[in-house]
């Protein structure tokens, strides 16, 4: 099913939940809503589900306006962070509830529930009450309940947030696999950018009720259009340094005290302004080298595979991913090499990218 949101807005008096959301989700696509807490992800999702009535704007399913359609008529499956299993029903009753409401005959209902339960690996738990299940099992039941009526649209509201890190990882790939196999259009709300990057075909980055960007994950990562997106996407987050970009002879240089970086011509040309700009550079694009910019190690955070090293250069801080074998200590003098093919530039006033707008 194809979903289109046009200028979708939700207000409660002065409080704004969603503010003119525009986007379309293609048939079979997996889209993530990504953004910090309170940015309107759940609000938008609940409007799509028909629980909230939009203050303004239009929701279309396959071209049909569904604003006035009751939730029960939208053929949607939904999975919640809280699982939202009915505590007084056992697993079988929970999963079969949507079918019961559709008046599916007993025999067919049993078959379909068993098939879904088998698919989710919870076939042996059908007699249990939700309180007798682990968090991961409960989430599988919730997923089963959402899938059993073969919905045309799946909505996920931070379904993995309550699970421990390892389970989250395996459920992540499982949900993705399932979605691919079944080909159901899906919208997945999360504030975990790794989840969004790994699972989604496209990501809608939200802030203050507005969609900041809506694009493929690689695009958002390599070509962030705003400072917010650049800072929000990527882990560890991008470094930002105030610089001046000047032209010396035929090359452009990014300069500040203790730093003079020759830039590739295409980026340098766009970044050259008559005032200071913000330079962004990801930690993995900076490396410790024999030659380069001189700095002093300020903090070392071991991450296991890498050390995240905070290097101070004349008052500016750069986080760098370094080889633990270097065994860096606080106070060590180091030299940094920056991959200038990957640097980003932003206008400090508008916070828009100077490269991609």
């Amino acid at each position: 099913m194809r979903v289109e949101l046009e200028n979708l807005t939700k207000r409660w008096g002065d409080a704004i939940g969603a503010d003119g959301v525009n986007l379309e989700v293609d048939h079979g696509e997996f889209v993530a809503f990504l953004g910090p807490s309170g940015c309107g992800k759940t609000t938008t999702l609940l409007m799509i589900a028909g629980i909230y009535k939009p203050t303004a704007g239009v929701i279309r399913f396959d071209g049909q306006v569904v604003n006035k359609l009751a939730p029960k008529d939208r053929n949607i499956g939904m999975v919640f962070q809280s699982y939202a299993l009915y505590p007084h029903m056992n697993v079988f009753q929970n999963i079969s509830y949507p079918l019961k409401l559709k008046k599916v005959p007993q025999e067919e209902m049993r078959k379909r529930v068993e098939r879904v339960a088998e698919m989710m690996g919870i076939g042996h738990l059908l007699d249990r009450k939700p309180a007798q299940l682990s968090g991961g099992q409960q989430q599988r039941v919730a997923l089963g309940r959402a899938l059993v009526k073969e919905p045309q649209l799946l909505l996920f509201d931070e379904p993995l947030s309550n699970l421990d890190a390892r389970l989250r990882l395996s459920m992540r790939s499982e949900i993705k696999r399932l979605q691919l196999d079944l080909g159901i259009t899906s919208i997945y709300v999360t504030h975990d950018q790794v989840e969004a990057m790994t699972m989604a075909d496209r990501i809608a980055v939200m802030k203050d009720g507005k969609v900041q960007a809506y694009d493929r994950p690689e695009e958002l990562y390599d070509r962030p259009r705003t400072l917010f997106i650049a800072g929000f996407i990527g882990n560890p987050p991008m470094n930002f340094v105030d610089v001046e970009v000047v032209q010396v002879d035929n090359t452009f240089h990014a300069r500040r005290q203790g730093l003079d970086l020759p830039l590739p011509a295409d980026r340098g040309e766009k970044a050259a302004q008559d005032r200071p700009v913000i330079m962004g550079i990801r930690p993995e694009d900076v490396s410790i080298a024999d030659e380069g910019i001189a700095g002093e190690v300020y903090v070392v955070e071991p991450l296991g595979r890498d050390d995240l090293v905070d290097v101070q250069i004349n008052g500016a801080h750069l986080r760098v991913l370094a080889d633990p074998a270097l065994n860096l200590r606080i106070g060590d003098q180091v030299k940094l090499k920056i991959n200038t093919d990957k640097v980003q530039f932003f206008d400090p006033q508008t916070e828009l990218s100077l490269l991609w707008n």
Partner: protein
Amino acid sequence: MSSPQQSDPVTPSGQKAVLVGHGLALVGAVMALVGFYLPWLGFVGGRGLVATLSGARIGAGPVIRLGENVVVFRGSPTSYLVVVAAVIALLVVGLAFRRRRLTGWDGLTLITAGLLPLLVLWGQFGAAQREAGKVGILIQTQYGLVLVYLALLAVFAAGILHVRNYSRQNPSFRNTLGAYAFMSPATFLVLVFFLIPVVLLAVLSLTDLSSANFGEPWNFIGLENYRRMFSDRFFPKILGNTIFYVVTTLVFFNVGLALVLALLTAHINRRASFFFRLIWLLPRITPSVVYIVMWKRFTQVPPYGIINQFAGWLGIDYQPYWLNEAPWVFVILVNGFVGASFGMIIFTSAIEAIPKDLITAAKVDGASTLQVIRDITLPMLRWPLLFVTTYQTLSLLVSFEYILLLTQGGPGLYTTEVWALTAYKRALFTYFGSNQWAYGAAWGFVLVAIGIVLSIIYLRVFQFDQLVQEPKIDVL
């Protein structure tokens, strides 16, 4: 999670439900206002507050006379001052208690705090009693009782302090003290207000004590009172009345209406539902005498009665005294309107405690509003439902004050007389001036026994122990 269902219904049918909710709320509000407060404002034939209270003497004294034969004891300004002083004194002592330092002064404050209200009340009760003696019966001592309870509390606190001081000097006593200390207030209440009276009642019911042989030595006459009770010509009638009264009021109002109200108010917007609930609480917080006076006004013959006033406007000529016409209807309405608010509050809070996600999930799963109520809300209200049913059965069983004030069990012979009312009348209220205390005690004791048996059955059948959750932390 405790916010009400703020989800905006999207469907036209949802909007209709909201409209119906608002409409019903409005009707309820108007009804309550008309029924309870307009008579006071001179709505009927220019007779208002003054008329209703005609003959009322509202002074500084502890007693208000309402009409011909009703007296309300309300306590005097002095008594309120004394109580305020007592509370302050208690606070002072409480603080000293927290500092773990008690002086002789604290003891003195305590004694004052404990005894002064008692003394004042003693005098005032006397005045009230005398006043009541002049006009008939004494009703409505609730304000006075509050004072008595406060005074008892003060004395009780003094006792605790003593025990505490004692335990400080005796460590072995101290170790077991905690358990007793936590149980003691409840034990005290049960003992003084239940066990002792029940034993007295049982003993009394085996005697021939009455105002006829008062002053002479009284005799134990075995089960004679019980034999007399069960062979009373009106015994079946009274039993039937009681069952009818309890079951009908319970099903239609204390549980039924309460549930409907809670569900309705959960589906309308927050401010409207608050107002609506407040209105349904009015009957409960209105003093019973006033409440009944209003209902009587409601049902009067022309030109006083409000029902008949409306009937007149509608051109209906049949305008009887409705209370005589349909006594049960009003007995049940009067009790039901008060009783519904208890369940309503319990159900409302239980409904609001249902996680919003569950409701959302059910709607997305394809449930209509009614199906959500049937499949999610009601099953999750199971315990509150059982609790309210149990509690209200017992309290209806022993309630009689509204019936006494409204119909006195009439009209005619035993038409609306219930068990508790019979017990009261036999013991304390007769047309011929003879108080058959012992015989009344027999009626009362059987009622208590029924109550206890019912409680045990409820506890068993509904497995109340399951209401008490297993502790999350294992006790080591």
